[in-house]
């Protein structure tokens, strides 16, 4: 099984240890992991700011780097969701409503249909996985050689949770489940703390964090306070962007609470 490792730009630049943990974790599970060196970004920062029409370059680059792999895995629910939802759009040339409503029928169209050439061949939306769901759903991991003897608060990142359905959301009246929790439960010594608001957004939100600074910071402070109130020593998530935001707030408060990406915990031997 050849896995293309997608390390989102800000993880590459700021949190290399998360990339390393992801790589090691996958290799421990017997995957052949390759990191295509020419990769950059999923394009989400531009697209979420209203500039999706600019992201064709990012999309094409992504397809070029990753189309050959059996699977693509990234330690970020948000970037994966973005790729899943947008990479097959020919950079918004097509009316968006056609893209959204016809999504499932696309493969049934004849070859000459006027879609981006790479579309049905690269199948990137179908083979890209966020790390946690790749471990639980594809590799079906049910034991881990990991230990992490700390009280941990799990931050449910919105795009992973509500977008990729990594966990049941509190809004829906449906049976609960949580893939990140399922994995964290396999880690020796780890104690998960309960939160008052188990799936409230942290307020990062891409460029929201600077364009709506006041609300973003307030949301982050409130999220951090929930974890601290329940005596978490470490806050984890499957999205580093949320954690980067929360870390910025924790450091400013000179809090001792640490942040760790879930890959670092699942790969820990402490």
């Amino acid at each position, binding site marked *: 099984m050849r896995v293309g490792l997608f390390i989102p730009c800000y993880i590459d630049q700021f949190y290399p240890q998360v990339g390393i943990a992801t790589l090691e974790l996958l290799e421990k599970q017997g995957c052949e992991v390759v990191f295509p060196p020419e990769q950059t970004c999923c394009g989400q920062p*531009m697209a979420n*700011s209203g500039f999706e029409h600019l992201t064709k370059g990012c999309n094409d680059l992504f397809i070029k780097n990753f189309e050959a792999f059996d699977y693509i895995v990234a330690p970020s629910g948000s970037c994966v969701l973005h790729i899943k939802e947008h990479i097959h759009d020919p950079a918004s040339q097509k009316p968006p409503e056609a893209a959204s409503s016809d999504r499932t029928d696309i493969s049934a169209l004849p070859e000459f249909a006027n879609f981006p050439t790479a579309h049905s061949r690269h199948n990137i939306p179908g083979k890209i996985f966020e790390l946690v769901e790749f471990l639980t759903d594809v590799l079906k991991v049910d034991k881990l050689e990991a230990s992490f003897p700390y009280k941990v608060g799990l931050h449910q990142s919105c795009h992973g949770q509500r977008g990729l359905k990594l966990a049941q959301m509190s809004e829906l009246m449906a049976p609960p489940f949580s893939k990140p929790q399922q994995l964290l439960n396999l880690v020796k010594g780890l104690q998960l703390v309960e939160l008052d608001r188990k799936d409230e957004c942290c307020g990062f939100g891409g460029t929201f964090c600077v364009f709506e600074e006041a609300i973003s910071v307030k949301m982050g402070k409130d999220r951090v306070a929930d974890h601290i109130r329940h005596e978490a020593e470490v806050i984890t998530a499957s999205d580093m962007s949320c954690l980067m935001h929360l870390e910025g707030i924790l450091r400013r408060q000179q809090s001792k609470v640490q942040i760790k990406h879930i890959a670092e915990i699942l790969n820990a031997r402490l």
Partner: protein
Amino acid sequence: MSGSNQKPLEVPEQSEGNEQGSPQWGEPKLSSDRTDFNALPEFAKLPKANSRHKQDHAALAAEFNKDEPRVDWHDETLWWVRQKRDKAAARVPEWELLRDTASRIKDNVLSNLSGYLRQFEEEATRNGITVHWAADANEHNEIVLSILSRHKIDKMVKSKSMLTEECHLNEFLHEKGIDVVDTDLGERVVQLAGEPPSHIVLPCIHLKKQEIGEIFHEHLGTPKGNADPQFLTHAARLHLREKFLTRRVALTGVNFAVAETGEFVVCTNEGNADMGAHLADVHIASMGIEKLIPQRRHLGVFLRLLTRSATGQPITTYSSHFRRPRQGQEMHIVLVDNGRSVHLGRKDFRNSLKCIRCAACFNTCPVYRRSGGHSYHTAVAGPIGSILSPNLDMKKYADLPFASTLCGSCSNVCPVKIDIHEQLYKWRQVIVQEGYAAAGKTAVMKTMNWVLSHPGVYHTAGKTGRWFMLNAPFTVKNGFNTWYRQRDMPTPPKQSFGDWYKKNKK
């Protein structure tokens, strides 16, 4: 052709669409929190993305956040309502099926709107109701005024109607010398305070009981310092009773109108719509054209969803059906378009017309809870307002689709399954494409995109460290300062993951 030629001419300071009559909107007044920017080093004064809007959502929300305990109180109050909604929904085993059914019924309505409207008009007319058609807010207001004038009436009571807020009916009638008393308790409070509602179901949720005590002391003469809710409610009751008994015209909103029977349903907890309508000689009901449902049997689906979603109650205290005027009474319905048919034509956005105005998306929205309704500077605030308002005035409300983290909670509490957060995303694209994004933001995005589309540039930029620290996707506004003001930067590592991989894995 002529349309596109005219467009630039409208741009400078035209207060078209400025129905609120708020001249400060166009004034180049800097809000106080923006003054911080002057303290920043020169290089950090990059694009001022919001300089076009003097008071956009971000600025108004920052203002609201100056009083943090108040933000906490506002957030917790609304979160409590969200939790009540969760409990109420959890008690209905078929909740998700109900949502799905409601969504489909509304889809059907939107796809057959003109037919249902004609059917409704026919049935309502047969029932003895006078049906009026208003293309826009102004026509609606003129129709209401003409009914009042015909009866030579200059005072009326009004129960809750967000449509009349949208049309700014109170201001319009006030200018014409008509005295309007809002009879919903929360609406009356904000009316006395001279403010618009901050929430479509809980209009004065932004006010604390002590503040309401003060407002009542000033306007209704209650003892100073008395903030006992029961006492204040009683005072309001006495005050409003006199209004009910002396007004001959009552205006109500409409929650649902049934095409099959020509009747309409008004949901209230206080019974004020009934009190007004039953005591008045003339009952005027204002409704947006999207409020229709096909048949009476569909009503149960919506009544079960509406109040559970809104406040966590199983149903409103009163769900009043109005079908025909009682003997000697006049009953009017004003069917208002005001941009709805344009909205219906926007394929990506039309299903926001399914909205039944429960405000569940307000209560769940982590941004709304912490920014307050007035920060949205529009009649219908919150996530749903952020996708409805740009249809009414894209320039004025260009900021609203950006007042969200796209967390998706709104779409999943919505009882009629409107894909709110996806529409927020799509509005962002439209707003940028239509040229309502700040030039500075566009420049930054283009640079960012160029770097991220060219691996070589990206790697060099990353290696120098500084570039990425200053221009990373999350720091684009003012160098790193907007991030750094209240948050620390991540500690830059010695090497990127890519560098590590090259050394260790190849």
